[in-house]
């Protein structure tokens, strides 16, 4: 028994990512075609060269045919996967394992969500028939409970904590303003964000990820074959996943200042990748900033800083684009919005650009000068009951 990972056995050799936006003029099929064509082109392959497909979509449709139809795939295995907001990451995880197993030579992971056809703002879940006793709170309200809990546990005045949260949003908007694929491309000052009315707990809409349509795709192969497709592949160092059992909702010991599923998931990923000091070894991280308090706690749960110190590190700019460890250099969910099935692959797309030094100059991080690893983190669910995904990707293959 054990989680061994597939370090350096699989490589990403091509990627594509649409602009994330309210794509009123594009449907799910258009988004799938756009993202996959870019990924095929990036790897220099055709749809027929890819042996198997994994499609991540939370609510875009049932079965692999959702992808097989618009791409007109002939006789290909296509699997639709869903793992809440980590759906896109899950697609990549399955494709990578399929290639590592030797079952296929070349596989593609695609993530897509067409959110803006619902007629309502925000993300709206499929109602599963139930006894009607389930909580009906929004995700924003669930995550808002982290802020006062964190403030109380570490003795941070609430006003100061709100400024920290605003700084997280401001930082991500700064980065997103430098990203042509982002939905929101305007810088927002801390003062502007603090002036917004509260909608859930102490959170304003500017503490929340936007909502957008989008798609992203990755082509993966065995690591030893990577240079057939590209001179600069990204090697998969770790893929880790934890599905929580919901005990945080019912356990009086849970205090809403940490996400235990993520701590466990990160530890497994670091063990797979052989990372002992993530703050020093990682060149960048893309994390699931669905709400600003989430990013705050993630800095500690992912081991980027000591418990109770993230708020100070954020204020000091440690995770800024030019900081010690740039977090969400692409602008994050904050700037991109969150097409559920696509977000995990969008995060990897930024690692693909940054580690290969293909990001636009105004957004290119400088930590890549002496570091070659990136982390992506994707979660689904709420404090107390969530799924967590962590990947480590790198440009250098060992062994």
């Amino acid at each position: 028994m054990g989680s061994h990972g597939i370090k350096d056995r699989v490589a990403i050799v091509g990627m594509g990512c649409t602009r994330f936006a309210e794509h009123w003029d594009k449907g799910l099929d258009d988004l799938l075609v756009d993202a996959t064509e870019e990924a095929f082109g990036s790897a220099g392959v055709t749809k027929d060269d890819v042996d198997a497909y994994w499609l991540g979509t939370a609510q875009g449709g049932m079965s692999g045919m959702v992808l097989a139809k618009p791409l007109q795939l002939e006789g290909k295995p296509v699997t639709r996967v869903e793992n809440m907001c980590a759906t896109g990451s899950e697609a990549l995880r399955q494709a990578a394992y399929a290639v590592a197993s030797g079952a296929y030579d070349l596989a593609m992971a695609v993530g897509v969500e067409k959110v803006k056809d619902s007629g309502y703002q925000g993300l709206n879940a499929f109602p599963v028939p139930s006894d009607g006793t389930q909580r009906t709170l929004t995700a924003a309200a669930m995550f808002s409970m982290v802020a006062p809990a964190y403030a109380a546990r570490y003795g941070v005045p609430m006003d100061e904590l709100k400024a920290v949260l605003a700084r997280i949003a401001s930082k991500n908007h700064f980065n997103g303003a430098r990203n042509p694929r982002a939905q929101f491309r305007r810088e927002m000052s801390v003062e502007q964000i603090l002036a917004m009315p509260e909608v859930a707990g102490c959170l304003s809409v500017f503490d929340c990820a936007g909502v957008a349509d989008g798609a992203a795709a990755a082509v993966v192969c065995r690591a030893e074959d990577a240079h057939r497709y590209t001179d600069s592949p990204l090697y998969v160092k770790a893929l880790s996943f934890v599905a929580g059992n919901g005990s945080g909702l019912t356990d009086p010991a849970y205090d809403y200042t940490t996400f235990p599923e993520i701590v466990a998931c990160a530890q497994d990923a670091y063990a797979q990748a052989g990372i002992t000091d993530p703050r020093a070894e990682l060149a960048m991280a893309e994390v699931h900033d669905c709400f600003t308090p989430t990013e705050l706690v993630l800095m500690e749960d992912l081991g980027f800083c000591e418990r109770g110190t993230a708020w100070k590190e954020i204020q000091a700019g440690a995770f800024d684009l030019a900081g010690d460890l740039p977090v969400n250099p692409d602008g994050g969910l904050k700037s991109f919005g969150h097409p559920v099935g696509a977000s995990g692959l969008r995060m990897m797309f930024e690692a693909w650009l940054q580690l290969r030094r293909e990001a636009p100059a105004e957004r290119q991080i400088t930590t890549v000068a002496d570091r070659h690893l990136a982390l992506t983190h994707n979660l689904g669910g709420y404090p107390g009951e969530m799924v967590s995904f962590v990947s480590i990707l790198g440009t250098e293959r060992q062994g």
Partner: protein
Amino acid sequence: MTRGIAGAAAYLPHRRLDRATIAAIAGGGGGKGTRTVAGYDEDTTTMGVEAARDALRSARGVVPDLLWFSTVNPAYADKTNATAIHAALRLGREVGAFDANGSVRSGVGALLAAMTGQGTHLVVSADLRSGLAGGPDEAAFGDGAAALVVADADDGPLLADAIGGGRATEEFLDRWRTPGEARSRVWEERFGETRYVPLGLAAWSEALTSAGLVAEQVDRIAIAGPHGRAVAALAKQLGFGDRHVGADLAGSVGNLGAAQPAALLTAALESAPPGQVLALVVLADGADVVLLRVTDAITAWAPRRTVAAQAAAGAPIDYGTYLRWRGLLPVEPPRRPEPARPSASASGRSTEWKFGFVGSAGEDGEVHLPPQPGDGVDVPMADAAGTIATFTVDRLAYSPSPPVVFAVVDFDGGGRLPVELTDVDIANVAIGARVELTFRKLFTADGIHNYFWKARLL
């Protein structure tokens, strides 16, 4: 065998409408004082549950054989409403549950059926009383519930023995309502008065005879009925003037319809010394009189929430919100998808949780809310108090009355549940605040009322 009242409780909802605020918006109507207003998440069934919980608590050890539920304003037709109360109280399958609904008189009718019947009866009545904006009914009515436990002396200590009664029934039109309409219609008041007073006198005289009493031996009287003038006139003719129970509640609570008789009787019992002779008179499509003698057991009775205490408590509601909650002011619904209807079969599998708030415990004794598969032990938690561990206000979530105030509650005796708060003013919510559970309606979808529990500040 002596039969009588073994337990009693009334429930008055949290909100109070100041009648003086009505005229400015409705262009007329209103008056002095306040009336009770049920929450948007309450209906006659949920209010009935709250009253019945306290009535059963007050009649310790008495287990009902039958449950009656009366209201003019039932949550469901066709489907029995008493079964939801039965489920929330976790009564046994062998306990009957029946509605006696539709008219104001149904409340006292169920009580009389219980008094003349056999076994132990839990008689629950509740009403949610509306009239159209600016009308006299809107101001004079109130919302609330009351429950009485009727038993034999053998079943447990009686608070009051039934010692006699009388009745008179007559068909005449004084007040009527087409089912589904928001208003009642009334005939000229004077006509009803000329019917009700003689009917009341006839029933009164029959009751005195049956009890072997003369009028002077009756210490206290409670007169219920939707016809205010007739009630006052009869009280006067019987020599009680305005010293009848309930005269003071009209100013703060309002007339509770089918629940008025049991609520007034409860209020009378709550302040009665042993030996007192009490009369309950109900003028509704006839006249019904019940005579009771308060027993020594009354001295050991400590009601959890008296009518007087509840009438003095509460918090204001503005008239606009009242109209909104009543559906009398159609407003733009939240721009969120409406919730899906609860599944009948899924609800059927979780009746103990959904209606009874029964959690579970495993081998380690930890309480799980909701119950966890594999745990062996049921843990009823509806009566547990709890403490707010953290909370939030959700202005985005769908609610029949946004915003949603929501807390993570740790219960005394174990267990944690993130649960919605109700009857709450946001400024009063704090980490560490104490809460209790209350049976509510989360929403209605496809005509299905989604009943579950919420927490309210203690």
